[in-house]
């Protein structure tokens, strides 16, 4: 058994143009099919095609929470794949490599399995298949089932019969070679379950698309942008099967305006983008706030500012999402914290957008969108994780006489007519307007309407108190030390906390899922009795920590709760170790232990 008996970090380094990513993906799929839990991570080279790539898959017997830190098993397909990963390779790890590409690696005592994949693949005249040879070898080494491997290759590479046959051969050659040369048990083998639990194997982007479909989204307009394109591509495939429509718009401004138009027309509508695109949507979002039109905007954050590093992760768009808009308009911001949560928060997003007639931004990030995870099969949705709220339509009576689209109500919500409804004819208006939607510019009217729109958010805030899913809290209840974070960093935080727990440290964490409105009650309760809070996040200015400080400064100061910011803007996720150390450090500084 390996160092960490429940999970194994397998890292593959090689040339992207030589099928390294396919190697990782196929191997991951085989492991998942055989019942292991998986969680992947990969890097993107600067070259459009080709270039050095790192594909990491972490396998586990229980749900895997993060991509893990150092590699337990390193699969080096070329020399760089060996050299570049040496510093991040567990001292008791295992090296699996192509001896023709990596001659005599200095493993410093680590176990090594040379698999001559180049030679083998050349042997049957299919050099392109060396990645599949390695898949075969890994299948044996990890004691996965050859049958499963065959099925996966068949499914994922079965386009051309001839190539498929070659690939299957490569797989088997690799398997046999490894079986023959390395019969001994492998220290990192994980036990396979008899009957694997029902699981989905999804990327975060796919989970968002499926969640949107489940929520009833039937319109998507979007413009390609890394790393959000997968959301669009998944919607493109499936929307029509549900009678929905996808438009690849000419840009992000068109995307948001099309989505708003479709929503005005009665469809649940969305778009998905990344930082530069969100910046372009700010004007449209402001219109949705003013005209009270539901719309969901997924923002898959990437390293910024400007074009930045499109394939690298970040959480740098929180401020833009919360505060980016001319004037004060209502808006919601959600932050799923895992691939699974991506699915549910999309359902929440549509509930909020539709019922409260307000734009909703859902913040994911490059790492969470592109990684693949096994997640439990979604079960009952409404009432458990999410609540399915619908748009408030006017009653026949309301339509029959003096229908006022923007009626000033106590809770701020006014029934919204859909074109085609007789009696409901109104004008959605981006100018300030009166109850009928007619432009109006008296000071009194502006004041009343600003208040009406602001009440929408307050109504939602009250409503959300009962939403389990608006916040996630775990760890040692009411511990003195806390961690507050948001979004995709949660996995690393959970693992760091498990390590701390194992060492007897009492610590508790809180991850809000609704960043706007903030679940104030839950946060306040969490803060009560805390001595210090670590706020890890992947941006430069500690945006979330500043939001917390700002919003809860009275409580923080009254109880002398210290905020420890842990900001990292390097394009890569947190390592578990970084969170662990920062927490340790906080506790020490605060005289905890």
């Amino acid at each position, binding site marked *: 058994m390996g160092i960490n008996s429940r999970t194994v970090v397998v890292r593959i380094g090689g040339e992207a143009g030589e099928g390294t990513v396919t190697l990782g993906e196929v191997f991951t799929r085989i492991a998942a099919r055989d019942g292991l839990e998986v969680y992947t991570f990969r890097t993107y080279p600067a070259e459009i095609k080709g270039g050095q790539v790192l594909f990491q898959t972490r396998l586990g017997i229980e749900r895997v929470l993060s991509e893990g830190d150092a590699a337990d098993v390193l699969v080096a397909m070329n020399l760089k794949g060996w050299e570049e990963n040496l510093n991040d390779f567990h001292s008791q790890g295992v090296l699996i490599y192509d001896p023709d590409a990596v001659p005599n690696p200095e493993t410093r005592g680590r176990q090594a399995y040379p698999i001559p994949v180049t030679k083998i693949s050349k042997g049957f005249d299919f050099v392109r298949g060396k990645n599949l040879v390695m898949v075969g070898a890994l299948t044996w080494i990890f004691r996965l089932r050859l049958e499963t491997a065959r099925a996966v290759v068949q499914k994922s590479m079965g386009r051309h019969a001839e190539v498929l046959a070659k690939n299957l051969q490569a797989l088997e050659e690799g398997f046999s070679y490894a079986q023959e040369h390395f019969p001994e048990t492998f220290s990192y083998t994980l036990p396979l379950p008899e009957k694997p639990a029902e699981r*989905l194997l999804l990327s975060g982007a796919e989970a968002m698309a499926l969640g949107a479909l489940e929520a009833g989204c039937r319109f998507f307009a979007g413009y390609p942008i890394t790393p959000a394109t997968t959301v669009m591509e998944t919607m493109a495939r499936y929307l029509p*099967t549900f009678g929905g429509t996808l438009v690849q718009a000419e840009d992000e401004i*068109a995307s948001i*305006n099309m989505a708003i*138009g479709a929503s005005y027309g009665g469809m649940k509508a969305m778009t998905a983008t990344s930082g530069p695109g969100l910046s372009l949507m700010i004007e*449209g979002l402001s219109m949705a706030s003013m005209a009270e039109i539901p719309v969901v905007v997924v923002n898959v954050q990437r390293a910024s500012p400007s074009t930045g590093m499109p394939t690298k992760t970040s959480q740098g768009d929180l401020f833009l999402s919360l505060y980016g808009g001319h004037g004060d308009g209502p808006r919601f911001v959600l932050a799923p914290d895992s691939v699974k949560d991506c699915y549910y928060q999309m359902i929440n997003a549509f509930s909020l957008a539709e019922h409260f007639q307000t734009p909703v931004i859902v913040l994911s990030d490059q790492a969470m969108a592109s990684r693949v995870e096994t997640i439990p099969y979604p079960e009952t949705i409404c009432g458990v994780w999410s609540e399915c709220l619908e748009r408030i339509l006017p009653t026949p009576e309301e339509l029959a006489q003096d229908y006022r689209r923007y009626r000033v109500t106590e809770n701020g919500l006014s029934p919204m007519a859909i074109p085609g409804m007789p009696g409901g*004819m109104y*004008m959605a208006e981006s100018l300030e307007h009166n109850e009928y939607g007619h432009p109006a510019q008296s000071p009194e009217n502006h004041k009343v309407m600003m208040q009406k729109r602001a009440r929408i958010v307050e109504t939602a805030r009250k409503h959300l108190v009962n939403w389990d899913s608006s916040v996630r809290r775990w760890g040692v209840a009411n511990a003195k030390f806390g961690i507050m974070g948001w979004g995709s960093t949660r996995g690393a935080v959970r693992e760091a906390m498990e390590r701390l727990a194992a060492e007897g440290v009492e610590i508790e964490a809180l991850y809000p899922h609704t960043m706007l409105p903030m679940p104030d009650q839950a946060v306040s309760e969490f803060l009560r009795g805390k001595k210090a809070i670590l706020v890890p996040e992947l941006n430069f200015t500690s945006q979330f920590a500043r939001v917390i400080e700002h919003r809860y400064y009275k409580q923080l100061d009254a109880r002398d709760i210290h905020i420890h910011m842990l900001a990292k803007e390097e394009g890569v996720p947190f390592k578990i170790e970084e969170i662990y150390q920062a927490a340790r450090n906080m506790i020490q500084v605060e005289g905890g232990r």
Partner: protein
Amino acid sequence: MARKPNDYKSNVKPIWCPGCGDYAVHVALMRAFAELDLAQENIIVASGIGCSSRMPGFLSTYGFHGIHGRVLPLATGIKLSQPDKTVIAVGGDGDGLSIGGGHFPHAARRNIEIAYIMMDNSIYGMTKGQASPTSPEGTKQAASPYGTVEAPLNPILLALAYNTSFVARAFSGELKEMVDIFKIALQHPGFAFVQVLSPCVSFANTYDLFREITAPLPENHDVTDITAAMQLAQSQAPLYRGIFHHSVRPGYSLQTTEIQQRAPKVTMAELMERYER
């Protein structure tokens, strides 16, 4: 149940200057609605921002007064969510050719089934008179005190180059003709573009000029002949009115509906299965 033009009038008094060309467009639209006997609840008029874009507010149909320059994507979204409704996009020359100029080619190439009525007054009316993309070279206004040096764009030529399936020019001084054009545009199963020469009496009054230089297209003009249309579009005197081009190819909402029919039907549960490990 014959409807009358005034049935389509809202109770909001137009804010336009007395004599503005947009009044004629308002009347022509209402007449076209009435003559086509369309139910108010089945019409949606979307717009951008500008004097001309105030139109939806003066109609008793469904409407959307959106943001500057984005009327075409907005109307596209509306049409796709309500394919059986009559969707009309209206706006000005600034709205549609300057800030919104990037959307025009795409609406045209999608052939989305909306009628796009551009009230072209060769000026920014709402912001009190600045040169627009159709202002003649040498236009002097406060923002161009030394005269503009840009060549004006020709909206008809653009529409033709964009492969717009219906392209016409009307004039606020020719009401009956405008009504007739609108009626065809509203029924066109694709993207129908109508440039209306709609003078701004306050900042660029061209009524007299257009009365003088406009003329109906030659009677023998073949509306399916793109090259002929392009040639006629380039003429400035006479400045032709009428239908330059009219052809039919499948519209966008029709085609997306066909895709929906073609796409394999799956339930959410079946879809999930595809992602089972």
